[in-house]
């Protein structure tokens, strides 16, 4: 591997934002995530949960709920506006003031023709979804309290609204009164945080007293109460086939209820039974979605957790493992190699630091506030690219001749900067590229994709390199493909043209193209073993992938001109220490 001097950088105070809402689009297999700072992220669940698009937030925008209507994404927030997003240009298309005060929830009916919003002033407003916009249709009867949650009946004829101390079913006579619960506060009203309306007219509600209640929508009576937590039940989601409901609490637990017969006898009626409990979060779970094969949850601890349901998988595999998405799938740190400067990208500002001499402390040079800039290369792309999808990756060659861009349609274009025209288009691969780099001397474009595949393309010859073909033929090692975080940065060693440096959140790797590629039987993580071998034995055991796991929670790895490595780490513990307060759990013997 060689010896490198390491600058271990931990002064990048990157702080992710809490997750507030999510909505899954089953047709396109995209998950839309809304965060507390107003930003919206789109994850492609078909492509290894890759974070495809990010729409940055704004101070004045607030998101309380998200919903999909076909391929269109709508959000509503406490500023009283409904916003539709333009997912091709990554910005809000328009915002419509609803004139009902702050909006707590937005939901669409299964036909996709209407949107209903629940407002602070107690009205449920219905909007008609038109081709290019939405139009106000009518208000339902105004209620005394605020409307916190809404759910359409699958037929689209009834709406259940969760309010303070009660659930109201519109277009029906019944009004369901929610008890204040077993919890201490009899003086505070119970807030029905979430409600779902099933096709057999059963209503399931979660409230601030920690109860999950099953109601009969026809008669307006309570069928069953489950007390699941001492704190609030904040989120509810029902699966598509209505056989399972998941519930998220303030404790950070996600509890599943299934509609099954409680015993094995044939004659037993099915009922809602509490089955599984997952504790994958440390703080409140505020957003939930149950998709076909997994439960997706997110909350105040800023992590997106995908928990695949094991009964849907035939065997234990990489696909059935728990996934936690903690860091963004893009590079936030930029390094000036000669000058030893680091540029950190924050949502609303940039910070420039100079690396220190021996102690590794950086010196903060400037503190710039500004909007995120795509650089002057973006104007060239506007002229020549016919694709409508936004670019999320860009890299240029060291000699300044070439520019490579990648968009969320997995298209990679290479431009000749001097002649200002498109040079070539790399053959499209099924997975989205997560990192790209152009070699300083050979001008080979190295691409790493979300499914962990690596390709090397020669820009000059307009074809894949021999090494790349060899790698594809051999296939990548299983342990490499099983990694669950994408590679976000590719860089090179000017002193050794055969080395490619890349990293993901948990490891840093140097690929040495002069060494043989590992096959499936080789020990993949062999650095420790190599160290224990003698000088004679080593060469036969070497392979191209040299992986180091000493540094964790990596945000960026770069190599300076003086052969020293810069490792920018952001310990998850440091992030946890700055999160809002979790609930107090009384554990035995503590």
């Amino acid at each position, binding site marked *: 591997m060689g010896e490198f001097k390491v600058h271990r950088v931990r002064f990048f105070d990157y702080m992710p934002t809490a997750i507030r809402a999510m909505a899954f689009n089953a047709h396109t297999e995209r998950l839309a995530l809304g965060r507390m700072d107003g930003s919206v992220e789109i994850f492609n669940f078909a492509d290894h949960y890759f974070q495809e698009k990010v729409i940055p937030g704004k*101070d*004045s925008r*607030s998101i309380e709920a998200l919903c999909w209507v076909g391929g269109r994404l709508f959000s509503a927030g*406490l*500023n*009283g506006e409904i916003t539709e997003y333009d997912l091709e240009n990554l910005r809000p298309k328009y915002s419509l003031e609803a004139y009902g*005060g*702050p909006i*707590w929830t937005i939901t669409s009916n299964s036909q996709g023709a209407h949107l209903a919003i629940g407002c*602070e002033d107690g009205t449920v407003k219905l909007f008609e979804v038109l081709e290019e916009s939405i139009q106000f249709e009518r208000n339902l009867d105004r209620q005394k309290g*605020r409307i916190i949650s809404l759910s359409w009946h699958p037929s689209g004829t009834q709406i259940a609204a969760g309010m303070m101390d009660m659930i109201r079913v519109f277009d029906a006579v019944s009004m369901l009164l929610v008890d204040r619960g077993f919890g*201490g*506060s009899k003086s*505070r009203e119970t*807030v029905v945080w979430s409600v779902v309306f099933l096709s057999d007219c059963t209503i399931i509600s979660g409230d*601030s007293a920690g109860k999950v209640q099953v109601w009969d929508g026809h008669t307006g009576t309570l069928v069953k109460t489950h007390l699941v937590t*001492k*704190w*609030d039940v904040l989120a509810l989601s029902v699966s598509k086939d209505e056989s399972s409901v998941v519930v998220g609490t*303030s404790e950070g637990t996600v509890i599943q209820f299934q509609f099954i017969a409680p015993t094995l006898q044939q004659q037993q009626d099915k009922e809602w039974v509490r089955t599984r409990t997952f504790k994958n979060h*440390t703080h*409140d779970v505020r957003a939930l979605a149950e998709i076909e094969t997994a439960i997706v949850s997110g909350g105040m601890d800023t992590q997106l957790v995908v928990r695949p349901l094991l009964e849907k998988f035939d065997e234990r595999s990489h696909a059935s493992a728990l996934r936690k998405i903690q860091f963004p799938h893009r590079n936030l740190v930029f390094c000036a190699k000669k000058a030893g400067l680091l540029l950190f990208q924050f949502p609303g500002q940039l910070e420039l630091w100079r690396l220190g001499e021996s102690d590794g402390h950086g010196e903060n040079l400037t503190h710039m506030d500004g909007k995120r800039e795509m650089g002057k290369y973006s104007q060239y792309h506007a002229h020549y690219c016919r694709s409508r999808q936004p670019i999320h990756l860009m890299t240029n060659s060291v000699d300044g001749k070439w520019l490579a861009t990648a968009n969320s349609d997995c298209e990679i274009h290479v431009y000749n900067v001097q002649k200002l025209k498109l040079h070539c288009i790399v053959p499209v691969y099924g997975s989205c590229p997560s990192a790209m780099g152009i070699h300083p001397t050979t001008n080979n474009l190295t691409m790493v994709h979300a499914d962990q595949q690596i390709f090397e393309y020669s820009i000059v010859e307009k074809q894949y390199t021999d090494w790349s073909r060899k790698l594809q033929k051999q296939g990548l090692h299983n342990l490499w493909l099983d990694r669950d975080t994408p590679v976000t940065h590719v860089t090179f060693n000017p002193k050794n043209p055969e080395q490619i440096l890349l990293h993901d959140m948990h490891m840093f790797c140097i690929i040495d193209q002069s060494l043989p590629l590992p096959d499936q039987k080789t020990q993949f993580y062999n650095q420790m073993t190599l160290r224990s071998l003698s000088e004679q034995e080593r060469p036969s055991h070497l392979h191209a992938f040299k992986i180091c796991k000493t540094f964790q929670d990596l945000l960026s790895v770069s190599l300076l001109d003086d052969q020293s490595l810069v490792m920018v780490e952001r310990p998850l*513990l440091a992030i*946890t*220490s*700055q*999160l*809002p*307060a*979790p*609930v*107090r*759990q009384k*554990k035995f013997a*503590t």
Partner: protein
Amino acid sequence: MHKMLVEKEVQPHRRSGLMTYRPKMAKKLLRKSPSSSNKFNSANMTDDFQLHLDSSDDDAPEEVTFEESKASALRSMKNALETSKREKDLLKEKRRKRQELFQEQKKRRLLPAHILEEIDTAPAKKQKLPGDQAESNHEEASCSWEEGREGSKEGYEKETKKGFKGNIRSLKGNYSVMRVADQSSTNSQQQTAMDFIQARLYGPGSQRTTNNELLSLENKRGPNKSAAMQFVNKKWGTEKKAKAEKLKKQWIQKQKVPSS
């Protein structure tokens, strides 16, 4: 009866009403007395009189002439009038004092006079600022027309015009300019909604703890039990840190000097 009238100072008008009424009554009664002084043997009259006039049983009623009673009535009226006048004067005095007090308070709230003067005269001094060259030219142009009309008062006019239009105000002190657009745009309804959710999740009764405790518990209950988490407080030992920094810099300087 006069005593009563003096004590009750509250209702002057009623009193004067009473006053004017009583003398008539008294007059009537008294008038009756001389004319009927000789005929005072009727039982009713005597009884009434005794109830009213408090005289001894056997004496004849006092002889009061018409003039006397008229004079006394007039006197009492005058007194009454004087009292009411006095009261009106007192009220006026009170009101005047109150008004003065308000003026005083108002004066105190305004800036002291010398600052106001400064503000007014400052623009006259700052005629040569580059950005306002055009403005001051404009001012002068508009002034010149005035000047033409009132020749001798030219200089004074200019100054007052400038002070009046007030393009620049050199406000000394802790003032800062803020735009309304820069302020946070959350209106009161949105703020109420945010407060509601904050209170429900993190307010009283929500039983929350700190991240420190959460992590410490994890340490204690994890597979490798370890001590509680202690977050570094950057404020600890600031003096020592500052001293160390200084020494470090000095040492680096010393290192550089012999090598250069």
